[in-house]
């Protein structure tokens, strides 16, 4: 009876403490976990890898600090891929909160490449290789407006430069010059790109989403409306694996390092659900006997 009571009444603080321990310890002593790359991630990787030289890629940063640990590694890995392949890159956000995260990711990845560069050709140069368009509210305006003219929607970039003076923008006028848009988001923006930009203007869309919201995005992947999809920390780790293995780009793999924490956290939750159910079954059996 005593064991039954213990099983049924574990103090929530004990659960919190155990969970905290298994999450924090692997982060303090990180090790990179190898992952098997699943088809949705491979599809997105190939979609980006096959962007023709005359076309561009748009990355839509639409996540806030809450979901940054899960989505930041995706952004970093995709940026590394795009810069390594020298894809013409535009970065934007449909909301104001993600701007800081987007700028941080751009600064770090550009620095990684430029610190190893020998010449100007090897370097990643703002305005020539990428442009940070910033934010124009409300979301529907850039989504629809960029079909006509990107510089008309974003007259100045995030840093206040006139976009029509930037060399890259002379090569990219509208969606006709864009091969793919990747929306990295913790909410609905990937669906908006499909609903407004893809259905009407034929823009190809890829998505990077949080694990908790993944189930509602799978129909878009199955129909081919998404050219590929990264789901949560695991999706980010798979993309990191692809970038490192295929492109030999060596950089810190934050998602792969965090997978051990995630594994232990999932196991702890499963164990607690099992413990809770054992207590439930024993109690139910005892009631039936009585």
């Amino acid at each position, binding site marked *: 009876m005593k064991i039954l009571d213990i099983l049924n009444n574990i103090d929530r603080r004990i659960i919190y403490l155990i969970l905290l321990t298994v999450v924090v310890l692997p982060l303090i002593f990180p090790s990179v976990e190898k992952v098997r790359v699943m088809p949705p991630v491979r599809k997105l990787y190939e979609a980006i890898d096959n962007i023709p030289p005359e076309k561009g890629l748009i990355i839509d940063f639409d996540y806030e600090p809450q979901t940054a640990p899960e989505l930041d590694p995706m952004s970093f890995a995709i940026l590394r891929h795009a810069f390594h392949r020298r894809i013409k890159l535009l970065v934007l956000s449909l909301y104001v909160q993600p701007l800081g995260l987007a700028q941080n990711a751009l600064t770090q990845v550009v620095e990684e490449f430029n610190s190893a560069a020998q010449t100007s050709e090897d370097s990643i140069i703002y305005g020539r290789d990428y442009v940070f368009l910033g934010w124009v509210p409300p979301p529907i305006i850039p989504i629809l407006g960029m079909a006509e003219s990107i510089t008309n929607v974003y007259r100045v970039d995030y840093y206040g430069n006139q976009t029509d003076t930037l060399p890259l923008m002379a090569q990219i006028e509208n969606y006709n010059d864009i091969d793919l848009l990747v929306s990295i988001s913790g909410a609905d923006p990937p669906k908006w790109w499909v609903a407004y930009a893809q259905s009407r203007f034929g823009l190809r869309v890829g998505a990077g989403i949080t694990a908790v919201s993944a189930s509602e995005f799978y129909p878009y992947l199955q129909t081919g409306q998404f050219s590929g999809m990264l789901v949560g920390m695991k999706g980010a780790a798979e993309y990191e694996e692809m970038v490192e293995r295929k492109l030999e780009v060596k950089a810190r793999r934050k998602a792969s390092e965090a997978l051990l924490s995630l*594994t232990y956290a*999932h196991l702890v939750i499963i164990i607690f659900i099992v413990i809770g159910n054992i207590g439930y079954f024993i109690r139910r059996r005892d009631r039936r006997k009585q």
Partner: protein
Amino acid sequence: MKKTFPLILVFVFGILGIIPFFVPHPFIQNSDEFLRNEFLRILAAFALVLGLGSLLRVHIDKIKRKRENWQYSWILIITFVISSVIGLFGGVRGTGILPTTIGTFQFDIWTIYWNVAVPLGSTMFALLAFFMASAAYRAFRVRSTEATLLLAAAFIVMIGVLPLGDRVSPHLPSFAQWIMDVPNVAGQRGILFGVALGVLATALKIILGIERSWLGGGGK
């Protein structure tokens, strides 16, 4: 007139929003481009001001009437005013007319973002893991066949999406992916169709003036 004019506006702009999807004529497309790029942008600026005004009004009213948790409304108003003043006059990086440095202490928008917004946001979301673990332990019971199926699917997906799944069985990740690709998509698509039809019906009712509750006054 007070009700008829908004109804006419909704009807006209509702129809104007639909037509360009079906009529490729340059006149329609150019008009639509003007609406999207110029008109909508001006409208959005007004909507932003209205939205912020409404937010403040709701919280001021809450404080006046001392409704539940009214104290938090003060926090919202004070932080709203402080960040607005700093943002408008101090600039994002502290390059505006308002000084945003006292000694070594900086309080420009960029600093506030990285030192307040980011940690607060991360903390709020991180707490979810603890609540979920505790709630799953207390509430996730195998009481019926449906609950058993749900639990089994949850365990397979939870383990299958991790590197551990591959070590348990090389088929487990593929099986977890199959659960997401097939049964999940089937369910989600049903929900999606239902929601889409509901949205379509509601939109048509609003455009045609059948649904008028958005005008206020309980739809009368």
